[in-house]
């Protein structure tokens, strides 16, 4: 059984990333379930997706302390989901903060830096992705979810090969987006390998 947590801010593409993993698992006859945030919170709120693969799963939600891998699209949100992880479960996180309107209004200080530093100080293996560099390399800000997914595949913890996710991309996305997303996946894989 594998428990994966994806987290971010509404609109960042956590659901698509979760669906690509699920499609790849389905293709290998691995039972899979997931639960995600849908509704009002999608309007700029914190969102998550709990993804569970393997036999013996009844609940779509993961027990705290039972997560095998965290894929975070935003440093503060990665930190928020920390209680769901097993002690040595790896964290893959984007380092770019999404500043909430409330913080901008109140002259708040949130910039994601303290949260990222905190994550770095933990015993969890940490893989960071810099979206600005990724966008420069890939030329498109919309595929950060697939970059993070690539890094997740490279950890080996998904139990899925790069080819499995590539097949899912080809199956689930329109053809004109294949090339860009496949490049994004490879970029994420290389990034995680380099960090190892």
């Amino acid at each position, binding site marked *: 059984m594998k428990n994966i947590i994806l987290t971010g801010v509404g609109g960042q593409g956590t659901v698509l990333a979760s669906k690509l993993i699920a499609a790849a698992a389905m293709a290998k006859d691995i039972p899979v379930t997931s639960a995600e945030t849908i*509704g009002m919170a999608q309007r*700029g709120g914190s969102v998550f997706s709990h993804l569970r693969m393997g036999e013996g799963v009844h609940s779509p939600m993961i027990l705290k302390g039972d997560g095998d891998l965290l894929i975070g699209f935003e440093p503060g949100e990665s930190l928020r989901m920390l209680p769901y992880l097993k002690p040595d479960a790896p964290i893959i996180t984007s380092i770019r903060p999404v500043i*909430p309107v409330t913080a901008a209004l109140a002259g708040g200080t949130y910039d994601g830096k303290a949260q990222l530093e905190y994550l770095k100080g933990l015993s969890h293996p940490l893989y960071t992705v810099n979206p600005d560099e990724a966008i420069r390399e890939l030329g498109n800000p919309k595929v950060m979810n697939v970059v993070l997914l690539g890094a997740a595949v490279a950890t080996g913890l998904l139990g899925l090969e790069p080819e499995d996710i590539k097949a899912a991309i080809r199956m689930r996305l329109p053809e004109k987006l294949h090339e860009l997303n496949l490049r994004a996946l490879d970029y994420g894989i290389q990034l995680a390998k380099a960090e190892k």
Partner: protein
Amino acid sequence: MHKEYLMGNEAIGLGALAAGVNVVAGYPGTPSTEVLETIAKKRKDTTYVEWSVNEKAAMELAAGAAYCGTRALVTMKQVGLNVASDPLMCLEYVGVKGGLVVLVADDPGPISSQTEQDTRHFAAYSKVPCLDPSSPEEAYQMIQDAFFLSEEYHTPVFLRPTTRICHAYSSLTVKDQEEYLENKPEGFIKDSKRWVIFPKLSFANHQKIVARDETLEEVFSAYQGNDIKTFGEKSGIRLGVAASGISYAYALETLEKLELPCEVKLFKVSTPYPFPKQKALRFLMDCDQVLCLEELDPVVEDGLIHLAGRYNLSVEILGKHSHATSVAGENTRDSIEGWIRTFAGISAGEPDTPDEKEKPDLPVRPPVLCAGCPHRASFYAVKQAMKGKKTIFCGDIGCYTLGNAMPLDMVDTCLCMGAGVNIAQGVGRVEPDTTCFAFVGDSTFFASAITGVVNAVYNQANMTLIVLDNSTTAMTGHQPHPGTGHTMMGEIVAKVDMEQVLRGIGVTTVETLNPLEHKKAVETVARVAAEPGVKAIIFKYPCIAMPSDKAKELKELGPVRILSDKCIQCKKCIREIGCPALTVKDGKVAIDETLCTGCGLCKAICPTHAIEGGDL
């Protein structure tokens, strides 16, 4: 049969199609919306599907279809059932010929709703049998069972999933289209003794319904969804856990995992009404103590306490009444495990991450209106026009409820669909010196605000109606409505013209304009609000999150830009409108280009003209 990765709501939609549903009607509402959308996408030509103007219309249409012997489905969220309650209460007395299933999605938390009301209670109140699934797989099976039950017992039947069933995904096995049932309806057979509700008929049918429910208690006691499993070894005390819905899934996983000190029986209750009496009695007789795990109201708990009292059983029943579990909000995998551990006397596992203490603060992220949302411009125009005046802004249900957030702060009340129009009238009766506004979205206008406007005109109210017309039902994911000009059957139809509707009612001042034309919008609001009587302003601009000609035009223009030589860092743009695309980077106002749509509202606010590009 084949395998698919499906959302619970998609599974329910496909289950209805597999059962040969012919007529489907509903009103959008989280967490129920995707059921009808799935049917519209996957239906055969023989299935009719519509988004009705509201839940009452949907229920009545489905009743008519079921009178003809067809299989019909109505979909809604739990508060939508309040709107449909008038026809449903009566329909239970009249009964149906073809199967009629009422899909009502409950929302523990609540996550996207006004209330934590429990449709299982509504089932007992209306005497409509109710099935309560604990997984997407079970929901797929249950909607098919529900059609069978409805036809067998000539009654509408509830299928009542909750958010974590509706929005959970699962890889599940479903039927191929060739395996779907086909129903050939007999047609409407005239019989006024059957289809016309009269006191005499209601009295006779009331007796029949009570007798039927006694039969159903036995039938449900043998139903596969009401199951008893045994965990652990016999020793001393005999424990039982009774659970329903997603709480059952959490409890099952917990009991499979824990090392139990004694035998624990797990009773899954999938038919909260009628209660599976005989099976529940067998369960209670095998237990000394029972813990009830369910969300919303203590329905299973009340059912068991009732039986224990009536049959004088010496069993202790714990749950919400004894505060052994939470009385409100969602249950979680963690809370269920915690309660079972306490109940069975098993110590808690390892404490959570020890480094919790010096954790930096987490950002607070309340939901906000999207960057470029036209509602922001509408609210801001009214706010500017009414500066310094005594006002009330009555809000309503939709994305625009988010106009309550700072800095807009433009929603003083919000109750239920369409209520704002009447609340504004009530305030006006008590405070004649208050300028009263009611804000309503386009879909909500058609669903339930029109009667409120009729009331206002007839009873000589003083108020201004602001219709926020973004040409869609945005909050639930862009469903069409009478004003959009297209239907769920894919037809292009005449739009119901809101302005003409208002004029027909007798509202003489009706102005339609673009809220992004800020200066004109402010002037119009000031002028119209000063007129006596009932008047209306329709702010018309398409939802920015939906493909439209406007969205295409804006995409070409690109985001706005800040001219650093002109920006004096007064941050008025941020303080006034709170657009998520306006942020502060290294102490300076910056545009988040991934969010900015280029709507140009911030340009109208900047006192030094330091923002350029975008629209207008």
